[in-house]
Structures are given as structure tokens and as C-alpha cells.
């Protein structure tokens, strides 16, 4: 059970405090309710580029990292299609340094030309390193626009085109900040061995004077219902054919979310899962196969991906895959099988809740979902899932009319 307190400042900032008497460290985690889904289609990759600029100095402090390192701390951040999350971990006695730094960049950035120029280049190299220079690295750049036609999930957080990053101007950057970075769009979580009253005083001191800004109205295009199977084949210089079946699934806040997560575990989490056993161990069609969900806030994807064994065709795989997916839609999952999956989920949850940083990040995320208390209810939601739930949701979700298939065809390197 994760215990925490919650309070709100006048400017709209939500603060969560999690007292932990066992650690000499403090965590300051800040989640901003902005991600790649908030970008316009002509300027993609901005939420992530912006995350880089958040380290390029704020209105009163020329550099973010140095003072935090001087305090013995470290920090990092990540951007997803839904959120941008920043964290600082430092010795508890120096917590005020993190609050000083984080509150100043919530107030405003320095916006220097040098920082923009350098971070543009860094992000372009990141684009190359992660997406262009890795075998299968560009798969999500292809799969997203296949699965989504209107919703901004059709582009990846890195952006849909390197040119969008190359052409980013200072005005673009400033207006992005104004629109998306304000106290009421943030959730702050502080963890460590402190008293609540001290945390309240410190938050008021550092964050209280940040003026409220209007929360920009979110206007995200709704994805039209997909009514037919989509398929695309791309050819790449890779050693093995690869496949990605992406089924549309419910939003993160839908009650069936947990059931679909369990369903994806049943079909492809580990070496006991149905697709691994049938398609790999029994039929030798694939060298690897797994299933997972994207976990996004808006309608997400349940993805089945893997690589074909040498000499196997996409058609052979497709036939057998459909047979296996049919089974889970027509007969109830066995009690042992369901227990196995739920036991694994229980272990994962225990490990997720251990460690001060993980807990702080999760608390912020659940608060964004509606209530940080959800962190303590999730395992129970999983443990209450029945075989009938899985059957019902499998029928609804594993529908090939709402599926998009990306095939990566290996072509010879000519070496």
C-alpha cells in the first residue's frame, strides 16, 4: 500500500507527497500533461524537442544540470505520445535545490538561440541512432500512420519527419511553452523523509508565486472507427522477415483496459503464452513472438510482433496466428492459465512499487488518470478478472477488421 498526501496550490499546481523514512534520498518528479498527441501535424516532434530545451537554462538560472549535480543529484526526462515527465533524485538534505530548479523552469525558460541550435542537432542524432541506424528501427514510424488515420498517435514522439525538427524556430518553441507548460497542467510528486508541513511550506515558497496560465483546451482529432483490415509491406536490408499486427483497443481509463492487458499476457507475454507455445515451440514458424499493449491514454494498440523462422512465409504465419486467436475468442481460458498470468502481474506490481523513483512517477501518472489512489487499486482490479471477462474482451478486441498489419520483408544486402 502506497501512502501519500495531496494538496493544491492557488495557481492550480497539484502536489503529491509520499513520506519515505527508509531512504536518505529525495525524489522530485514533475509530470506535464503534454505529449506528442498535442502537436500539430505540421510541427511534429516538438514535445520531445522541447523536453531537451528544458535543460538549456531557465529564466533565472543559466543551466539546469550543474546546480543539481553540485547538490549531489541527477536527473532525466522522457516524452511519450501522452506525457512529458521530468525527475530529479538527490540527497534529501538538498531537496530545495531541485525545487528551486524545477519551479524556475516551470516559470519560464531562457530560450537561447544556442540551446535551440544544439538541441536540434542532438535530437537529429537521436533520430538517427534510435530509428534510422538500427535494424527494424523505423518500424513504429511506419506502423503508427498505418494504424491511425486522424488521431495524432499516427506519428512517433521523435516526429514524423526530421525536417520538422530542422525547421523548428524560436517562436515555435516559445508558443509551445506558453500553451502547454503551466502549473495547472503539471503534477508534482515529492518523496522522501520529510514532514508534510515542511513540504507544504517549501512548495508554497518555490511554486506559489508562479502565475497561473490558462490551461489550453485540448482539441485532439478523434480516430474514426476502423472497419477493415489494413496491410502494408516495407522492404528493408534486415536479416529476417518481421511482422507487427496492431489491433485497436480501448482507452487507458476504460474498465476493460486491465482485461486487455491480461489478454495480451495470455497470448504473448512469456514462454508459457499461447502464441509462443503454438507458433514457436510446436509449429516452428517464428524465431520470436510476443504481444503487448501500448498503454496510451487515448485508444491504444494491442500489438503482436515477431520474426519469421527461415523459410517460413507471412501467409503460413497468418493462417496459424488466426487459428490461435480464434481459440481464445471461442473458449474460456483455463483457471490455471489465468492464475499464472495474474500471479505474474502481482509480482510485477510489487517490483514496480518498490524504489522511491518508480513510486513517485507512478503516483503522478495515476493522478493524471484521475486519482493517485488508483496505484493501490490496480492489483485488485487485475485479480478480480474472470475467464468470462477475457473471453468477452478477446471477441471484441481481436477483430481483424480493426487490425493493421505491417510486414518487414528482408531483402538481400548484396554482400
Amino acid at each position, binding site marked *: 500500500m502506497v501512502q501519500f498526501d495531496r494538496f493544491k496550490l492557488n495557481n492550480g499546481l497539484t502536489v503529491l507527497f509520499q513520506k519515505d523514512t527508509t531512504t536518505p534520498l529525495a525524489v522530485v518528479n514533475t509530470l506535464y500533461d503534454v505529449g506528442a498527441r498535442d502537436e500539430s501535424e505540421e510541427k511534429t516532434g516538438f514535445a520531445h524537442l522541447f523536453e531537451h530545451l528544458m535543460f538549456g537554462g531557465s529564466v533565472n538560472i543559466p543551466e539546469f544540470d550543474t546546480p543539481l549535480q553540485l547538490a*549531489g543529484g541527477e536527473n532525466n526526462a522522457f516524452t511519450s505520445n501522452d506525457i512529458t515527465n521530468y525527475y530529479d533524485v538527490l540527497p534529501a538534505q538538498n531537496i530545495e535545490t531541485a525545487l528551486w530548479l524545477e519551479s524556475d523552469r516551470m516559470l519560464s525558460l531562457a530560450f537561447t538561440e544556442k540551446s535551440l541550435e*544544439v538541441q536540434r542537432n542532438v535530437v537529429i542524432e537521436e533520430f538517427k541512432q534510435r530509428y*534510422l541506424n538500427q535494424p527494424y528501427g523505423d518500424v513504429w514510424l511506419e506502423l503508427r500512420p498505418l494504424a491511425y488515420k486522424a488521431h495524432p498517435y499516427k506519428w512517433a514522439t521523435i516526429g514524423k519527419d526530421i525536417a520538422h525538427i530542422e525547421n523548428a524556430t524560436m517562436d515555435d518553441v516559445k508558443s509551445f511553452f506558453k500553451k502547454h507548460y503551466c502549473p495547472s497542467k503539471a503534477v508534482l510528486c515529492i518523496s522522501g523523509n520529510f514532514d508534510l508541513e515542511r513540504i507544504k511550506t517549501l512548495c508554497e515558497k518555490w511554486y506559489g508565486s508562479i502565475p497561473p496560465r490558462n490551461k489550453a483546451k485540448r482539441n485532439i482529432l478523434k480516430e474514426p472507427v476502423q472497419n477493415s483490415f489494413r496491410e502494408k509491406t516495407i522492404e528493408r536490408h534486415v536479416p529476417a522477415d518481421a511482422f507487427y499486427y496492431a489491433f485497436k483497443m480501448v482507452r487507458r481509463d476504460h474498465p476493460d483496459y486491465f482485461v486487455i492487458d491480461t489478454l495480451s499476457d495470455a497470448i504473448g507475454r512469456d514462454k508459457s503464452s499461447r502464441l509462443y507455445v503454438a507458433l514457436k515451440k510446436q509449429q516452428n514458424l517464428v*524465431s520470436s513472438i510476443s504481444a503487448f499493449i501500448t498503454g496510451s491514454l487515448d485508444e491504444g494498440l494491442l500489438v503482436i510482433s515477431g520474426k519469421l523462422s527461415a523459410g517460413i512465409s507471412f501467409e503460413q504465419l497468418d493462417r496459424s496466428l488466426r487459428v490461435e486467436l480464434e481459440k481464445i475468442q471461442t473458449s474460456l481460458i483455463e483457471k490455471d492459465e489465468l492464475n499464472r498470468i495474474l500471479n505474474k502481474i502481482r509480482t510485477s506490481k510489487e517490483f514496480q512499487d518498490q524504489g522511491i523513483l518508480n513510486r513517485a512517477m507512478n503516483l503522478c501518472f495515476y493522478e493524471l488518470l484521475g486519482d493517485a489512489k488508483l496505484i493501490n487499486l490496480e492489483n485488485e482490479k487485475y485479480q478480480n478478472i474472470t475467464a468470462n471477462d477475457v473471453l468477452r474482451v478477446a471477441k471484441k478486441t481481436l477483430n481483424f477488421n480493426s487490425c493493421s498489419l505491417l510486414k518487414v520483408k528482408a531483402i538481400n544486402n548484396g554482400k
Partner: protein
Amino acid sequence: MVNRLSPPKLKRVDRIEFVSPKKYRISNHVTLYHMKEVANETARFDLYFDAGKNAASNGIPEFVNGLLLSGTKDITSFKINDAINGMGGFYNSGISMENSVISMFCLRENISTLFNTVLDAVCNVSFIKKEVEEFLADRKQQHAINLEKVGYLAHCGFQKKLFSNNEAYSSTLKASDFENTTAEQLIDFHAKHYLQGLLKVVVVGNVDSATIQKIAAACQNIAKAEPVISPKTLIHLPSRESKTKKDAVQTAIRVGRILFNKKNEQDYMDFLILNTILGDYFGSRLMKNIREDKGYTYGIGSSLVELQETGYFIIATEVGKELVEQTLNEIQNEIAKLQQDKISNEELELVRNFMLGQLLKNADGPYAMMDLFISAEMHGKELAIYNKAILAIQNITPERIRDLARKYLNWNDMCIFTAG
């Protein structure tokens, strides 16, 4: 109004509480280490074997490591996985140059059952033909994928030069390894390096001592009878080589040399400070120059990697393919600066505080504390070495840092390998 222009007052970390695990004797040379102080239901165990990559050639150690749960004459791989997954366990196997480690993450209530399942599977693995063939086919495909990664190509090339005098350390997987492996080779290796090769056992979790004693007892007959003897000297060959990969948009760069490990206590601890300044944190000289000033890369870092008897220094990065020479020049410049100029008090203060904060973090919680302990134990040290590290960080001088850079970071001593 709050004053945002002057930073809050700082207090440096001056002491860290280190907690040793409890020791249970398995045999003369083999110990079980148990960290009981876990406040929740999580638990982990690790078994270390003398079965690292250097223990045989042609990929045999990697293959055996990957096949440990592939089935015995009594129980199939499917049933083994089912038993582990049914208990909510997460199994992991990993191999380094000198060790093989298998790990289980689970709830404490299941640790005994899972331990017995894994031990039985690992000790009685029978290398069933079908399992071996499937495994090798998968690994062959994975190897082909790895060969498409410039980071992997650079690593292999670098390793050859770094361990130039020792075939067991320098060799990397070849395509023919996947064709020529026989069941006999696997069985022989397993018999020697697993059935008589257990080096230590680690348990983290709130488990009673009776359970731990049972685990220790069950390990007795696979304990290694004599201490492992690893090569004391590995010799690198200063060189500059490259491998071409058509169509790559980035080039991977590796620069480094053989150095030392914790056994060379004072130089090791002081060099770690030099290494941090050069390339081991976000504010390091290399990151500041090559990423944050020039924008050549997404990341660049340096580290000191420890082996049983020695260690090596390595700088690694991936840069735009047209930026290789500029990057190497800048790396060389940054090293030269450290050799010529004494570090400012300001920067040294920053690195001191940062390193002490990191050590505090690396000692936070039972899992981190156990990892810290094992990192000392590997080299015959106790946790006390970290108190010495604190003193080294507090007391090092700019002159000493400069002298270490002069002694150990000469550009002409480096192995340089690029792939792209």
C-alpha cells in the same frame, strides 16, 4: 517574493551507511550472501557460475547459458517455464566475460519453490536435440541482426585489440559457431562449468534463515572446489582500425585501453574521479563539448569496466558519419586538457558532490546495497572499500588528477575502433 537568483544552501553527503549481507557457508570457496532487510514482498536470487564467455571458445558458453531451461529427461522446457511463470517468477540469464549469472525475481512466498525448480532444471538439463537446434537457429538470426548494428560491430573490433594477447577474451561469435556446435560440447561444458562451477549465491528478500540454509545446502554439490584463476595481465594493442558498414548514417566509436580494477585500490578510486570528470556524467567534459556544445551525438560516455584480475577503460559514442574525425579530435583535445591543466576548484567541488550523491544513491535500498557489496566481493574486498572511496573523493587534489591523466590516458596507448 522568493529570491530565485541565488541557489539554496547545500549540504554535502559526508557519510553513508553500508549494510553487509549475512553470510552462509556453502563450501570452502563458495558463500551464500543474504540481504534480509526488504520492506515489501519482493525477493531475488542469483546463482553465479564459472561459465563466462572466456571459459570456452566457439560460443559454447553463450549457448549453454541460453539453454539452461531447455528441459531435462524428466521435464520439458514448456513445463519448466510453466512452473516458473505459474509462481509469478521472472527468470533471467546473463553472461559476462568471466561469469554466467542466472537470476529469479519473485515474491518471497515463492522463493523456495522457484529455487528448487530452477536448480533442478539447470543441473539436469539434457540438451535435447530439437531444443538445441531451435535455439541455435534463433541465435543465428539474432547474430545476423546484431551484425547490422554499428555499436555491435565496433564493440567486436575493439575487443579484439583490447585483449590482443588472449584468445579466450578477444574472440567473438562467428557465423560458423551456429553450425558446428555439437551436443557433446554442450554437455561437457555444462558438466565442468555448471555441475562443478557454482561460485556464489545471492538472495535478497525477507526470508527466514531456515529457508536460506536449505538453499545453501542444496547448492553444496555443485560448488566449485577450487578458486578461479583468471589471467592477471591482459595486453591491449594500441591501434586505429575501422569497419565499413554500407548505408549506415552513424558511425560507432570505441576508444580505450587495459587498466586495472579495485584490487589496485588507490589508483582505481582516484581514476574513477578522473573518469567522471572526463565522461561519466551528464556534465562531463565529453558530454559538454561533444553533445552540448557541438551537437555531434545523442550521447557519449566513458567508464572503467572491471574484470576479475584487471579492468579496462572505454569511451563509447555514436556520431553522424561525417563527424568521426572531428569527434576523435575533440576526445583527444579533452584528454590533453586534463593532462595539461589542473582542474579548477569549482569543477572539482561539483564532481565531488555529484559522486558522493551517486554513491548514496547506489547504496539506497537492499537491492542496490547487495549489488554494491557484490561489486566489492568480486575483487576480494568488503564494503569498507566504499568508505575509502568517500575519503578519496573528499581528498583528491587537482595535481593528482592531472598526473593520473598523464599516466593512464596517453592517446598513443589507445585502441581506437570505428564502425559505420
